């Protein structure tokens, strides 16, 4: 079996372990950690999906936030069923992302990155200015149905795994190859009849649906949300998971999210040194592991006689 296939096996095995833990563990702390790991995996996978086209979509954080607010409003105010709120929590940011993408995906590289950053921060400003959704202090009382409470972590893991399966399937198929073709050379891709803007918008829409569902699940796990939860840092952490796991492999997002979330559990104990430590960890990891853990894994495998894979290329720098 090739390295890439091994990497996939490791990724899916980790998800299976999370599911088993969520189903069997009675320990509240373990369940919480499993839940945060799963949500982080989803954020990382959603960010990485758009990275297949070569664009760094910081607005992953924005769509995560829209999903959270929409779902929270639906269950907390209108008492709509939880699962319906998840669905709409995915669809609303998806629609918004189509509008956003149609305008902004004409640009690429640093321009798109900065615009998606600005979009994220402007949405956050809008939340703080909107008193009806709690302004700066946000919303409280966002609960999943009572009967679901004991299974909440398991539900989250299952939904995340399902969405990841969709990402995996899309990436492996012709559509995923097309996204990589766009990343490589959008002019050539356009020349053979492929509407690059439309493809990028579809890609963004799929990723934003997943991000929205993630935000909705986050809101119901956290019970309270506020604008501060949806700053661009959400996307930065997601990118750190992808990068430290190794962006060329699908399972890099999974492995990175598992490791960094576990690390963060220890870091929280440092109190106000938390940021300092986590920032330092990201910087050190970037300097020591330029291709992430999967890159390290690949190097080790090659050293032991394996072969290099035709892995997806790194996202484009500059333009």
């Amino acid at each position, binding site marked *: 079996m090739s390295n890439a296939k091994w990497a996939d096996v490791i990724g899916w095995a980790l998800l299976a372990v999370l599911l088993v833990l969520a189903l069997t563990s009675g320990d509240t702390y373990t369940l919480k950690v499993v839940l945060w790991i799963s949500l982080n995996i989803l954020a990382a996978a959603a960010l990485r999906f758009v*990275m297949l086209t070569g664009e*760094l979509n910081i607005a992953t954080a924005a769509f995560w936030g829209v999903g959270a607010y929409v779902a929270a409003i639906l269950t907390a105010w209108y008492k709509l069923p939880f699962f319906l709120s998840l669905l709409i929590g995915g669809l609303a940011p998806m629609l918004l992302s189509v509008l956003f993408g149609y*305008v*902004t995906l*004409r*640009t*690429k*590289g*640093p*321009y798109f*990155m*900065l*615009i998606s*950053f*600005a*979009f994220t*921060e*402007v949405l956050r*400003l*809008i939340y*703080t*200015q909107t008193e009806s959704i709690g302004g700066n202090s946000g919303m409280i009382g966002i609960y999943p149905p009572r009967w679901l409470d004991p299974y909440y972590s398991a539900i989250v893991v299952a939904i995340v795994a399902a969405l990841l399966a969709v990402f995996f399937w899309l990436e492996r198929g012709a559509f995923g190859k097309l996204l990589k073709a766009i990343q490589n050379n959008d002019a050539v891709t356009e020349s053979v009849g492929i509407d690059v803007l439309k493809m990028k918008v579809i890609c963004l829409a799929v990723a934003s649906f997943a991000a929205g569902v993630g935000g909705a699940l986050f809101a119901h796990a956290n019970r309270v949300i506020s604008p501060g939860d949806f700053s661009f*840092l959400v996307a*930065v952490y997601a*990118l*750190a998971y992808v*990068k430290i796991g190794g962006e060329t492999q699908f399972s890099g997002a999974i492995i990175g999210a598992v490791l960094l979330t576990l690390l963060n559990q220890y870091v929280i104990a440092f109190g*106000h*040194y938390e*940021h*300092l*430590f*986590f*920032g*330092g*960890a*990201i*910087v050190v990891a*970037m*300097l020591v592991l*330029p291709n992430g853990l999967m890159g390290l894994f690949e190097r080790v495998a090659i050293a032991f006689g394996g072969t290099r894979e035709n892995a997806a290329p*790194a*996202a*484009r*720098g*500059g*333009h």
Partner: protein
Amino acid sequence: MDLAAQLLVNTLQIGSVYVLFALGLTLIFGVMKIVNFAHGEFFSLAALVVAVLMPVLAPALGLPLWVDFLIALAAAIGAVLVLGTLTYWIGFERYLRDLVGSFILSVGLILFLQGVFVEIFTATPRPVEPIVTGTISIFGGRITAQRLLIVALAITFTAMLYLVLQRTKLGKALRAVAEDREAAMLQGIRYRSISFYGWLIGVSMAGLAGALIAPLTVSQPAIGGDYLIKAFIIIIIGGLGSIPGAIFGGLLVALIESIFGYYYDLTIATIIMFVLVMVFLLVRPQGLMGHVER
């Protein structure tokens, strides 16, 4: 009071600092092809150094306040240069022309430096005593002498950067690299050392902006972050890497901010700026002065 004149004076006053800040960002992008998200941290460091030194210098030296300010400003730029050199050697040097890698690195740096600044300077807001007092009237718009001094200094620094870029050998090399790195290297320009100087000049511009803002506000470690989003809007409008674009964009953003900030508030002004950027992109995706190949 003439409202239009007042709004113009306000624009100049806000804009001059935005321009300095955005110039640094756009210069670094031009030369290194990276976006320095940690630009605000250099701004914060300089503001904090000035805010800490000013109350200490005055009683210790017994010199006029403006001399104290110049000393504090020099110290602030010194601190920024030290931090800039360290961050370049340890990190950014390895991420030249790597947009994504440098992004994570610079955000990691934001988190790290925020922690360090809070340790060193604490989170307490630090005001600075006015350097000069009094109010001056220009074209019917009123401005405090303090702010006028700051504007004058900001314009001076901007002009100095412009002269350096246009006239000196270093400036020509920086522009050549920004325009076409490979052609510049063929002409014997050493890219690595030029990008280091570009980086140092860029972060110094952030530092100058921070040092100039310190006397006008209360400084605390997170102060630089507020400038970042506006600086991004400025360089999107002006075109990444474009020096005239950053100047124009900075003044435009300041104009919008003073008009909408006057009638509504600053948050609304920022939101409106973003909406304008979106509309603008729909019409002209290649930016105002920069050009994206299509």
